[in-house]
């Protein structure tokens, strides 16, 4: 048990008492940390401490490829749209980031309604756990500025056959990991959370659906890296290995230092 603190002078005890309650993490750092850790490969429900990240991802990626192939009615088209969206930088190269407006939705068809009921939409908003979120959410509610003109999309999404998918025809984009203006990081996270939960369920097509929505609403969002990482996992889970590898190459180019890379590479290499 604890030895009596009486051994310490009163003054020192007071100092310790004061420090015992830690300081809060500064808002920005907290939001960045949460995002960085969220971009790690998903953990499986029931994951036990005996499984390391690599094996968890490998297991995730290797799961029921054939089932996913069959159930990919929506996912195929979604994946193609998504793949086309992997060049947000090409679509709007040097966007001034100071404005408060969120990135306008590009002149593309709205995403189809979700195929399955979103179980995760009932989840508590991320903002409850992210200190920076409430403000962000407030700012994102109505568009503040008049809607900017529709942005030209550099490369229209190339339609992809469902499976087996040929390499996605995407020019190597150079996404500068630029700070986006989007203040709605909580909204962003919500969408990615939806995707993550879908992937955990093994529902790759709903996952891709949510990821597509994210790509459309936040083409250069703050969590773009996480989105792309999840997309690679989703495609792999859906059995669309070629597309997954293609996107992995882009991901490597765009985020050479990403912590997700080793696990993504491992996951793809171990499931030929």
């Amino acid at each position, binding site marked *: 048990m604890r030895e009596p603190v009486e051994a310490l002078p009163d*003054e020192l005890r007071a100092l*310790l008492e004061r*420090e015992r309650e830690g300081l809060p993490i500064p808002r920005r750092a907290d939001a960045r940390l949460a995002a960085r850790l969220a971009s790690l490969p998903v953990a499986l429900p*029931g*994951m036990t401490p005996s499984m390391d*990240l690599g094996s968890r991802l490998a297991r995730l990626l290797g799961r029921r490829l054939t089932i996913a192939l069959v159930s990919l009615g929506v996912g195929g088209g979604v994946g193609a749209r998504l793949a086309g969206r992997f060049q947000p930088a090409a679509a709007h190269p040097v966007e001034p980031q100071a404005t408060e407006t969120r990135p306008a939705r590009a002149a593309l068809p709205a995403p189809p309604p979700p195929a399955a009921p979103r179980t995760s939409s009932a989840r508590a908003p991320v903002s409850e756990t992210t200190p*920076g979120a409430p*403000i*962000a959410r407030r700012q994102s509610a109505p568009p503040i500025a008049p809607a900017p003109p529709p942005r030209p999309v550099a490369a229209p999404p190339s339609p992809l056959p469902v499976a087996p998918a040929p390499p996605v025809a995407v020019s190597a984009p150079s996404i500068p990991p630029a700070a986006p203006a989007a203040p709605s990081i909580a909204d962003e996270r919500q969408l990615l959370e939806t995707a993550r939960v879908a992937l955990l369920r093994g529902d790759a097509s709903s996952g891709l659906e949510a990821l597509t929505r994210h790509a459309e609403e936040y083409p250069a969002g703050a969590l773009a890296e996480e989105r792309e990482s999840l997309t690679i996992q989703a495609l792999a889970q859906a059995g669309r290995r070629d597309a997954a590898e293609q996107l992995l190459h882009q991901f490597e180019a765009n985020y050479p230092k990403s912590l997700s890379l080793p696990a993504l590479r491992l996951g793809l290499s171990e499931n030929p």
Partner: protein
Amino acid sequence: MPHGATPGKSLTPESLYQSEGQYVWNSLRRLGVRDADLEDLTHEVFIVALRRLPSYDPLRPIRPWLFGIATRVAGHQRRWWRRRGETLGELPDVEDPGPPPDEALADREQRALLIRALGRIKLERRAVLILHELDEVAIPEIARALSIPLNTAYSRLRIGRAELVAAVRRLEGRR
């Protein structure tokens, strides 16, 4: 729950961060990590922790275990990440409080004094001191978390306490 929640069955990087992020951040700060490095090293602690989950005994409190990792990370001071901040977008900083009122100023000074005093103590003893005096972890648990013999833990605490008292006195005398 003084030592943090025991992780349930579905432990994710996010859930671990949500429950223990602040603890890790503060542990690194107390161990003497500079403010500018706290974010990166906090991240690193979680990366290491997730990789080492197999070595974590779920029956034990998680905080001392995390602290053990934080101690090693703080000791290395190597950085995997450099200024990743700008890739993730800046949130409006609503924390700018203006000039702090007296109480906040005093609080900051007192905390800083303690951290400086701790900084004068060798890391291995500093770690035991922090775990025991601030986190209120029992010595046997500390010995386990830091992988040191029980007697070593006791002796580090004893010497560390004496050093801390002396360090605080020196620092206060200088003010």
